[in-house]
Structures are given as C-alpha cells and as structure tokens.
C-alpha cells in the first residue's frame, strides 16, 4: 500500500458509453462514471468521463499517476474500413498474396453462386514486388535489388500513401532485406508510417503474416492521431498522468509501443472485461472461469484458467486473420437486440440479425417492429420497466405486441410461451457456443465458474449455467464497467516470438538457446523502456509444439536454457495436453518445435480489492418490491432486490431479480444467492450445496 494518495484511472470507450473507473491507491476506494461516447471525436467523451469521476470523487487530477485506456480506434478503423491509404512490398512472384489469400470460400459447395470476395486492404495498384529471395533457413538466394525497391517506393509515395507494409518470404528467419527496405523508405520519406513483418509478427505462414502487417500499417496513422490528441489534451490540462494502452492479450503497453504496433490493440476493450472478470473471480476463490460478456448485438465468451485469460494467436477481426496474441474470445451473434423470427420452414430463429441500438428492441419505442431478446425478457417480467437509473422507460405493450405477431401467432403459442421460447433458443445457442469454446479447448464447463457481465449477461447467466451443468455463477459488483475496472488490473506485457522449426531429439539445443537469449534480451530491453523495476519483472518462455507435419501447434511452457531433459519434459507435457484437448495422443510420433515465444511481463501494483465484513444472512432489507415473473411456464411471485443494499454475507433464494443501475440479474427458482465479501453475487443451484 502506498503512503501518499495517488489515483489510477481506467477508461473504456464502448459503442454507447465511455466507462471510467478511478481508484484511490490509499483507501482502495473506487469511483465509477459513465459518459456518452462521442463517435466523431472520441477524445471528447474521454475527457467528459474523466471529469465526471473527478467531480464525483473530489480527487485532485494532479495526483493521477496513470490512465489505462482501452483504445477502440484500431478496431473501428478496420470495421469501418477507414484506415490509411497504404502500400505493400512483397517478394517477387508474390504480389497477389492478398488477392489470393488462402483461396478459401466459406460455406457450402454451392456458395460460389453468390459469394463475393472482400476487397483486400491494399489494392493491386499499390502493391510492389521486391526482387529478392531468402531460403527457408535464412540464406540470401537472390540479393535485394535496391534500385528497383527505391523506384517502387517512390512510385507508391507519388501515389500518396500514408503508410507502408513490408512482408517478404522467410523474413522471420532473416529480416535483413525487410530492414534494408525500411531504411530506403525512411530515406525517401522520414515521416512515413512503416510496418515491417519481421517486427510485427516474425512467424511463418506468409498470408497471415502479411495481413497482420498490413492491418498494423492500416491503423497506424489513425491510432497515432488519436493518441496524439489524448496526450495533447492531458498536457493542455496539465495532468501529469502517464497514458497506457490496453493490449488485446490483456496486458498494457506505453503509447510509443501502441503507435508502433497498433494491431495489438484490436480487442483492447473486451480484453479488459475478461481480465477484470478473471482477477475478481480469482480473488473470490474462483480461478477457473468462463466469462460471458453479453451486449446488444453479441456475446463474447472466453476461458480463464488460474486467474489468467487464455490467449490465442488464431483470431479474426472482420474478415482478416490476425496472428498476434489475443484473448481467446469467441463471439456469438446473440445479444439483447437479437431479432426473433419464424422462418418459412417453421423454425424459430433468434439472431444473428440485431435491432442494435437504433431502432433497438420494440420496447425502446424507437420504431423497432420485430421482437428481440430484450422484448421477450420484458414480457416475462425479467426486466424492470425502467432502465439505466430511470433514463429509459420500457414499453411493455409494444413488446407483447411484437412477440405475439412475430412468434406466438405463427407458432400457435401464448405470448408468454413464445417469449420463453425465444429465451430458450438464445440460451441454448449460447450453450452450443460455450461447448465449442470449452470442449474444443479441453475444458469441462462443469469445472468452471460462469462470470456474466455486460448489460445483458446477468439476465441470462444463471440459466445458461444451469443448462451447461455449471454449478456456480459469479456476478461481479459492477458488471457494467468491468472492462474499465479490468484495465487497472492488467500487467505490462509484450510477446517476442520467432519461428524456428526443429525436431526434438534432432535439433541442437544450443542454437535454440542462442535464439531464446536474443528474444530475452529484446524482452528485457522492452521492460527497460517501459520503466519496470527489476523486482516486478517476469519472463515466460513457451514453445509452440506439434506432431511433425501437423499444422496446428500447442503452446507448452518450458524452462530455459533448453536441455535434452527439459525438451523431453516439454514433449511429455505436449502429449498430455494433446490428449486432454483432442482426446488422443501419439507418443511415438516425432514432435517438433515451431515457434519460440518469450513474454516480458511487468507486474504492476494491482489494487487490493476492497473486502467487506459479513453482516449476516438476512437480505430482507434489500427487497425493493415484488413482481410477477414468468418461469418454466407459469407466473411466479418474485422479490426484487436492490443491489446497492445487499451486504456481504446476505443470502436469499430464487426466484429473484437483482436490480442495479446498468443491469439486472435474474435468479431462477431453485437457485441460491450468497453475497461474498467482495460484494459479488455467488449463485448456486440448490442441489449443488448452499453457497460458497
């Protein structure tokens, strides 16, 4: 605990709201704020939100040491296709790489009747080939034709490019040609934004590496401008706070690093939510969780084990594969705004079409004419008539009308049956996705705690858990601002990797140790740049291993330096992990190393979460009202609890609704709620035992 009062602030810019969390380092007290997001210039909402928490807490802005920010600029630039005008340089013979892709057309055989390939981020007009060639082991087979490259870059500059991506074959083994091209480009245009694959993602598979490198260049100028305006704003106000940016793997990095590798920020906001959920759940004694962030149009599901979100290097943003480490989120097209409709075949479909925020569900009274999940919840009495602290009044009659017209009549059901049907379909769809997420990663959902958050998560979480056989649900104290909260719980982090294929048993460990040393030196240098004190540093080594010839690898931790013994150990761990995840292993098949990864971690002083003393099980004081809620085919008298009135140690039974400003938790009949000392709701099924 620090002696002097300082503050740390987390700011998450979402689609509708900018969430701000301010943490008092001395008292560990937390102040929340929500300001409308300002899409035209998001910096405005940023500072409005900041002002809001400064006013509410009375904190002195001069004492803010750090602002941790989840930037959505990179994501929006990609989704809205508003990135930079850029050029690309490839190896000679490969200029059409973005056009060809992996030649993959999604869907069934006949999809070619209607399928249109998305346009690549760099049109052929701005792709140039560099006469050069490296071998698979990094030898120069054809030297770089510098004059040709110079001419090519000049042509691209004459065509007004703002950014340049460079991706040559096998540059992850030998980056010399890429580096030389970058130098030439800098000579010709010192201010050009440049993204070079051997720096952005030194891993094999040229298409994915090229796309990642191109995306990085594509968003660089926008991220640079945006972060520049935030930094200037802080400077203008004389705020001394240092700005950090949240990475897609739930680590944080400096602005300098963010401008150089903005592709690492594409899932910044969701990563914060998952991190927040993991840390809070771990503090409450639930290290293995599946988090479920349900919003208006979609739900993000992610696994965390041992208190850490699981990472993946196999993610997509829009239709672009990106291969940097990202929290292993699976997005399902099911949210509060998902539309229910009866198809001509008689099948009831819910989503993926969404009414979004505008017009939104019918009950918002903004012209939504199709039944949504939120309408169904309202019909069933599972949502209060007013949302967001009284801001929006919901129109129950409108909901009943659209559910009746859209679903009940065509299927010959009552309005309530139809509404319950919509909810069942949504919950079961999420169950299917949850299975793919957990089982495909070798986890049994029954061993996990479900942590629902986001506006709609706690409405559905308890029922989803029941369907999945999950015995415990943890609803955090502030499910609506969990991302911003998570930002304050993140570590400084950067991954350094290199593809270097070799068969265990044949490879020379010394060569690998040399490379690991080099990566570790880069990691240490980076931690120096980020000013991380020696005592707070950690370096983790993982090897991506696979059966020889397989194309997917599993990350396995390893001790360095590598020796025959430590490699055998890693190999044994690989067989076990393969069996756990995929149901079989092949202990007699050769195993090879594909990629070395060194992760530099700077552990920041994380806030001690505030713990409350238990005040006894009686929760009657928190009952605000009674209401009728439709559960399992019948209306049931249900208590409505006010979340802010619930105290640690309180206990009550479902059915119940728990109301708070930005969300409602639905507790089903037969479930039991215990409020823990972090004020989380711990919901269990009666048969699974009583409370924690």
């Amino acid at each position, binding site marked *: 605990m620090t002696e002097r009062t300082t503050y740390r602030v987390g700011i998450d810019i979402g689609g509708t709201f900018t969430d701000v969390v301010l943490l008092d380092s001395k008292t560990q007290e937390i102040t929340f704020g929500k300001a409308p997001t300002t899409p035209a210039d998001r910096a405005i909402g940023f500072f409005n939100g900041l002002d809001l928490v400064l006013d509410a807490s009375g904190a002195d802005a001069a004492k803010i040491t750090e602002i941790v920010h989840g930037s959505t600029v990179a994501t929006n630039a990609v989704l809205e296709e508003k990135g930079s005008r850029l050029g690309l340089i490839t190896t000679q013979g490969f200029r059409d790489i973005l056009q060809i892709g*992996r030649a993959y057309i999604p869907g069934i055989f006949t999809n070619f009747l209607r399928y249109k390939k998305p346009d690549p981020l760099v049109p052929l007009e701005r792709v140039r080939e560099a006469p050069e060639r490296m071998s698979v082991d990094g030898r120069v087979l054809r030297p770089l034709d510098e004059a040709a490259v110079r001419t090519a870059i000049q042509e691209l500059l004459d065509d007004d490019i703002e950014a340049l991506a460079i991706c040559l074959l096998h540059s992850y083994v030998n980056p010399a040609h890429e580096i030389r091209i970058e130098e030439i480009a800098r000579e010709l245009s010192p201010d050009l934004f440049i993204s070079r694959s051997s720096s952005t993602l030194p891993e*094999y598979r040229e298409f994915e590496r090229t796309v990642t490198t191109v995306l990085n260049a594509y968003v660089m100028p926008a991220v640079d401008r945006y972060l520049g305006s935030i930094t200037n704003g802080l400077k203008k106000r004389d705020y001394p706070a240092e700005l950090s940016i949240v990475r897609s793997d739930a680590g944080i990095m400096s602005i300098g690093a963010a401008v150089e590798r903005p592709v690492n920020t594409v899932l910044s906001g969701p990563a914060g939510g998952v991190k927040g959920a993991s840390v809070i759940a771990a503090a409450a004694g639930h290290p293995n969780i599946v988090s479920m962030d349900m919003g208006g149009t979609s739900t993000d599901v992610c696994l965390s084990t041992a208190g850490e979100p699981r990472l993946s290097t196999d993610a997509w943003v829009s239709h672009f594969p990106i291969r940097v480490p990202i929290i292993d989120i699976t997005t399902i097209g099911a949210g509060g705004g998902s539309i229910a409709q009866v198809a001509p075949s008689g099948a009831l479909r819910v989503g993926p079409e969404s009414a979004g925020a505008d017009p939104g569900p019918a009950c918002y009274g903004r012209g939504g004419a199709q039944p949504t999940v939120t309408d169904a919840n309202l019909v069933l009495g599972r949502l209060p008539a007013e949302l967001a602290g009284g801001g929006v009044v919901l129109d129950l009659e409108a909901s009943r009308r659209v559910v009746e017209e859209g679903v009940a009549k065509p299927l010959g059901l009552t309005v309530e049956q139809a509404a319950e049907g919509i909810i069942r379909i949504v919950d079961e769809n999420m169950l299917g996705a949850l299975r793919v997420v957990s089982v495909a990663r070798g986890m049994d959902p029954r061993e996990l705690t479900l942590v629902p958050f986001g506006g709609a998560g706690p409405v559905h979480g308890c029922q989803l858990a029941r369907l999945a056989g999950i015995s415990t649900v943890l609803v955090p104290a502030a499910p609506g601002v969990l991302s911003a909260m998570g930002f304050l719980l993140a570590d400084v982090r950067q991954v350094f990797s290199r593809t270097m294929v070799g068969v265990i048993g044949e490879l020379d460990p010394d060569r690998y140790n040399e490379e690991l040393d080099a990566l570790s030196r880069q990691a240490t240098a980076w931690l120096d740049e980020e000013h991380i004190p020696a005592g707070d540093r950690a370096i983790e080594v993982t090897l991506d291993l696979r059966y020889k010839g397989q194309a997917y690898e599993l990350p396995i931790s390893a001790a360095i330096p590598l020796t025959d013994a430590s490699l055998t150990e890693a190999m044994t761990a690989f067989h076990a992990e393969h069996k756990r995840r995929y149901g079989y292993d092949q202990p007699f098949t050769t195993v090879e190393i594909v990629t070395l990864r060194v992760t530099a971690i700077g552990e920041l002083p994380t806030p001690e979460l505030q713990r409350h003393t238990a005040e006894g099980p009686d929760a009657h004081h928190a009952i605000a009202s009674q209401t009728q809620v439709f559960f399992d085919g019948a209306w049931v008298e249900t208590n409505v609890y006010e979340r802010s009135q619930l105290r640690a140690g309180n206990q009550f039974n479902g059915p119940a609704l728990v109301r708070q400003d930005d969300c409602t938790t639905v507790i089903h009949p037969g479930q039991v709620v215990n409020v823990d000392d972090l004020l989380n709701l711990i919901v269990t099924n009666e048969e699974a035992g009583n409370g924690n």
Partner: protein
Amino acid sequence: MATDPITVQVIANGIKALIYEMDAAIERTSMSVIIREQHDFGMSLIDERGWVISGTTFTGGSLAEYAAANPVHPGDVILFNDPYISHGEISHLGDTMIAVPIFWDEKIIAWGIAWGHHMDMGADAPASMPTQASEIYHEGLQIPPVKLYKQGELQHDLLAIIARNSRTPDMMTGDLLALSSAGKIAEKRVHELCEKFGGDAVLETFGILFQRAHDTMAKLIQLLPDEEPIVFEDYLDNDGLNDEPLTIKAAITRHGDRVTIDYTGTSPQCEGPVNYPINESLEKMGLYNMLRLAAGDKVAIDPELDPNQGVEDLVDVIVPEGSFIRPEYPAPVSLRHLSLGRVDEVIQGCLAQVFPEVVPATHNGSLNCYSMLGRGREEKDRWLCFEVMAAGSGGRAAIDGIDAFSWNTRLKNAPAEFVETVYPVMIEQYSLRPGSSGPGKQRGGYGLIRAIRALRPAKLYFLDERHKTQPWGLYGGRAAQPNDAWLVRADGDLVKLPSKFDDLKLEPGDMFVMRTGGGGGWGDPFERDPALVVRDVKVGLLTVDQARERYGVVVDADTLELDETATTEIRMNSEPVLEWIDRGMPVDSPAPGEFRDVTERPYPWLVVPELPAEGSLATA
C-alpha cells in the same frame, strides 16, 4: 405426443452445434495436410437408415446394410473406404469413412460420421490417386466396412495393417484416431439431447428436419418448367490412359411435383481412373443445394435450413448401366473427383438456362492436384508433398467471378512458407495468371500460377482436367483460358505436360509450373464498364491488346489511360453475340504419355528468374 416447437428447435440447434464441434475437432487434430490444411473432409449426423440429418452431405445407406448383417454394439467404430460396397457413398480409396453408431434404448437411432482424404493409402501413386490405373487394385488398400473399435477397444492389428500400407503411416494413424474422436462427439451430444428431452423428441426432430427440407425442395421444384427437359452436356479431356474425350450429359425434367435427373447419353465405362460411381442420394442433395442458392430468393424458404436427405423422395436419378458414372467392379475410380466436378458443371449448365440471373458461367473445371514424392534410399528422402490449387470461378449476371477459387469450397491452399519448411521444394512464384479470365460484362475470375522447384530428386504426379476445352462463358460472356502445366528443367529446357501423368522424374532444380484456368465470362464483354477494363490493364492482368480484342476498350500503350472516342467507335461497330453459350475452341494439349519439348514460353509466364538461384540447392 407432439413435441413443442421450441423444444424441436432447441434440439435442431443442438444438432447443428455438434456438427460445428466435429468440424473444429477434425481440423485441429487430423494429421494429413490434405485434410487439415486443405479441408478435404466432412462430417454429418445420419439416421438409422443412413439418411443425412445435418452436416456436409454424405449418405450412409451402406451402414444400415452393414448393421443389418452384422452385430453392432455401443463403442464400436466402423471404418471403410470401398466405393463399390458403399454404392459410391465413398467414391475413391483415398477417402475413409469413420462411423460411430449412436444407441438409445438399445437401438441404433443415428450415426456420427466423419470422412477425410488421407495423405496416402498406398497405391501405384501417392495420395492414392494414380492416373494410370486400370483396376481398383492399383489404387490402394480397399477396406470394406470393418470395426476399428470394438466396444471401445481400438483394434491395433487393423490399424497396423493400414499404417503399413501407407507411405505416411503416422498421418494415417493420426487421421483415423482424429476422425474417430469426432464421431464420438456426435454420440455424446446426441445422448445428452436424448437425456434432456427424451429419445422420442429427438427422433421426432429428425423427422421434422427432413420434412422441412422436403417442403423447401417441393417449392423449389415448382420453379422448373413442367415436362420440358433442360439439357446440357460437357466433356472430360480423357481418362488418363486413352486420348478420347468423355461426355457427361444430363436432362433435368419436372413432372408435376417431382423432378428427374437423367444421365442418359453419358459415355461408357472407361479403362482409366476417371470412372465415378455416382450415388443417387448425393445427386439429389446436390440438386437441392444448387436450387436453394440459385432460386432461394424467388420463393419463401428458410436460408438457414441445413441441407439434408428429406429431398430423397422428390427426385429421381437415372444413371445408365455401363456408363462411366456407373462402373463395374473392379474398374479404377481414383480420379473420380474430376468427373464429379464435371457432373456438377453439367447440372450448373442446366440450371443456368432457368436461372440466368444467378447461376454463373463455369469455373476452370478441375481440382488441380500434384504430388511430389522424394526418391532415394534414406528415410529423409521419402517425403511426400501434395497440393490442390485454386483457379477462377465464372462470371455472374451481377458480379464478376471469383479470383483464386476452388469449387471444393472448403479448400485452403498451403502457405509457401509451410510447404518449404516441411518439404525440400521452393515455391518460386504464386500469383494470379494474367489474361486467364473469361471476358464478359462480368468477367470470370483469374486463375493462378504456381511454380514449384524440386530441391532434391523426386517424382512428380499430376492429375488435372480441362486442358483441351475452355471453361464456358454465358449470355455473351466468352470462354476462359483452360488449365495447363509445364516443366522447366534445371538447364532451362521447357516441356509441355499432359493433364494426367505419374512418375515423372525430377532432378534438383527442375521446376513444375501450373497455370490454372480462369472462369468463363457472363454477358457481352463489349458492355463491360471501360474503367474496370483499364484497371485490369493498369495492374497487369490484361495487356493493351487483350483489352482491345476482348473488350473493345482502347487503352493508350504509354499512359495506360482510356481512349474514349476510339473505344466508343469499336464498340458501336461490334456484332452482338447471339449464342447463349461460348465454349471457345478445342485446345491443343499433349495426349496421355506425351511430354512435349517446346522452346517458346507461353504468355503469361513467370516474373521470377527461371534458373535456380545460386545456393538454392546447397543444403537440400
């Protein structure tokens, strides 16, 4: 008792989800490059009769036959690859099928099935696809339905025999275990659905899903003209052994509520391995899939409905006895995918006459595959590299064809860096093939050029089609450039290759060049937006001459800008195309066994140097 519509939908969604789960599991865990990287696999849930309920289309009547004749127990896993015993459900030996019986109340109610194309099942040529086979015995190990697991026990003896017969035993073993694991996922999930909702509700849901497909197909059929045959035919270059073209002919006729596909007029069984033991049920589902996409917007149908075999009773398929799509054992079948693709094109050609606003001109008409097999005595010399290429798809009334496309739509090509890491080869060039696209108001997609240099002694195997005919264009659109293939010897000598061959010896430095075809054009090319033509010229996909000849667009050779006046003049004086289809001209291509020495490079050719780079052979 009727199950409520919500529960039915919950079960239906559960079935869909289990297919996704199987798909993810196979992609992640299989070993063969063909399965994992190139997605040549599928999975389905089928009912006790063998009807597909959901998944990638496959039908399993032979499993019902097996279960009727043999005891099947929970925990058994059935394995087979026999095209004849399975009535073409599996149609060449390189694919194997794994089937897990799903019991409920002591009866089989469904099967979880998964198939994949293995890297090698042993044959005269790698990947179990010899182009010179004249009997199925040349094409690899034939496995009738047998048990890979008996009541949960893996039959190691059987696995050992199969592995021993493969050039890639580890991959073979890994694939079979991966496919089995996927099948068991289906079993587990169906059991959960039965526990939760009752076996009857699950069976009732199967019935409802069949009924939905049936009702949808019934509506689609009504869009076809009544009692008016729609006829189309197309041709294969040859059977790999004899230089004779083969005809596939189909007539689709609606008779009131039903539709018939009649293949009468298709060529007789052939000596070489392009025989294709056609399966009627697969043809029926294929027609359903085509109609759904071609005409789904004309009638109210559910776009998310999974294809299934509920359409079985609405379609009749007539396959002439003695034809090469109804071969007799032991006729060779290993290249049947080339015929399969052409059969689909013939159906496409029929439907293009009824739904011209959606159905495209044709694609390159092949899955261009090659294998390279290391030769030498040492273990490290026994490598096997196999790839399938993509090409151009046909133009459509509203949009251009797709560049770099494969009609096997799940296919993904392998990254050059992956291929070079695993095999002693070098991918010298991988690019679009300029000029290959069929001209049209909506042009066809561009094909590809891939140049692969062997760095160690190897043998080359090649299986391709449509070297002798051009991919057809429609409604004024012109035919596209067909596939071809070349060998550049290490010293620069050039050989033009036939479309199918085995065992061509390569020395280090020899380079194999595939140029895949474009897609046919759609609509009069002289009506194409000149700006789009100029764009293709500027990025080097068309020459100035091609722009003028094919599109009537005049581009200044120096500035590459459009000459509007000259363009208008040419276009105004052009003759409109009257034929609805343009099949182009017969193309001269080497006969089977003919390796033709040539001196002149074709256009377009490689942009990279032809001779091996210094040091490229050094460590290999």
